[in-house]
């Protein structure tokens, strides 16, 4: 199955992106806990833009060929802002001058980020359908009907469904890692993340990650996080518990 094409039925695991970026992966269709409506979800760096103004394309713009207005499927609704790693200038000056006196206060780093996520209102230019669940490599849509907060899963087997590398199975190396992630022009620090040994590549950002209950993807699996970064043989997912709490969305069907 070519995940970079145009889909009339939207579900997790296919190409998507804001008009400002190249292409990432649609995490899936979720429920917005603030108003009960269905929303499209991916990473903030995939849905980058201005809420209420920036449109979301399926497939993503480049290299997948998504264009305005035919491929518009939504409009950015909200996101969880990303915190910069560098302390503010005033704090750096104080620590430069009085660091010998202030000790630990100057040693402390800024609060780490917990998620890289955003949601978009479903607002298609042409007819598109929404289905809860995620595309498998053979084109079927699977709906794993559980969620897992993301704690206590060291060594567990997980799978993800992404635009570029499709469904891949991996192993959780750590469920509480603090990481420095390169965003093209700067590093951002993330805390309490899931680090997985598994295959991913550019364009997989936004892939939903599931905790496996058997040997292959199944309806009994649980959504555990959303992939946003990686390094070839390893990838990082923000935990479902933080995504739910900070973006205020729900995966489960009523």
């Amino acid at each position, binding site marked *: 199955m070519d995940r970079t094409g145009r889909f009339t039925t939207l579900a997790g695991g296919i190409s998507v992106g804001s008009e400002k970026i190249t292409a*990432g992966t649609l995490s899936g269709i979720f429920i917005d806990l603030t108003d009960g409506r269905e929303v499209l979800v991916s*990473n903030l*760096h995939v849905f980058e833009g201005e809420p209420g103004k920036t449109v979301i394309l399926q497939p993503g713009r480049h290299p997948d060929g998504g264009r305005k207005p035919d491929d518009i499927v939504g409009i950015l609704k909200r996101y969880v802002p990303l915190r910069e*790693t560098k302390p503010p200038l005033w704090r750096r000056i104080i620590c430069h001058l009085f660091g010998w006196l202030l000790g*630990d206060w100057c*040693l*402390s*780093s800024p609060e780490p980020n917990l998620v*890289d996520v955003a949601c978009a209102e479903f607002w298609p230019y042409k007819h598109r359908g929404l289905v809860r669940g995620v595309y498998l490599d053979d084109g079927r849509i699977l709906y794993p009907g559980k969620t897992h907060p993301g704690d206590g899963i*060291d060594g567990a087997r997980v799978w993800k469904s992404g635009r570029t590398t499709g469904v891949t199975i991996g192993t959780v*190396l*750590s469920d*509480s*890692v*603090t*990481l*420095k*992630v*390169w*965003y*093209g022009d700067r590093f951002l*620090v993330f805390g309490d993340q899931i*680090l997985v040994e598994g295959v*991913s*590549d*550019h*364009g*997989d*950002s936004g892939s939903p990650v599931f905790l496996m209950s058997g040997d292959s993807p199944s309806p009994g699996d649980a959504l555990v996080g959303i*992939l*946003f*970064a*990686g*390094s*070839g*043989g*390893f*990838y*990082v997912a923000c935990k479902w518990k933080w995504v739910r709490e900070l973006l205020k969305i729900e995966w489960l069907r009523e």
Partner: protein
Amino acid sequence: MTLDRKVRKILDKLLMEPGVSGYSVKNGVITIFVEDDEMLATLSSLSFAGYKMEVKKIGRIQML
């Protein structure tokens, strides 16, 4: 300040060093994740009293 918190502050500083990708502290084990073999060799002799140390190469983590 607890030992874990003190160690985390030191690890937060270490994280800002080029070549260090991340760290985790769990059940008395500190794991430092690094970008390359050079940093792996540099940090392999690092030790923290009261903790078991591991250093693992995972490459540079970047948005995908």
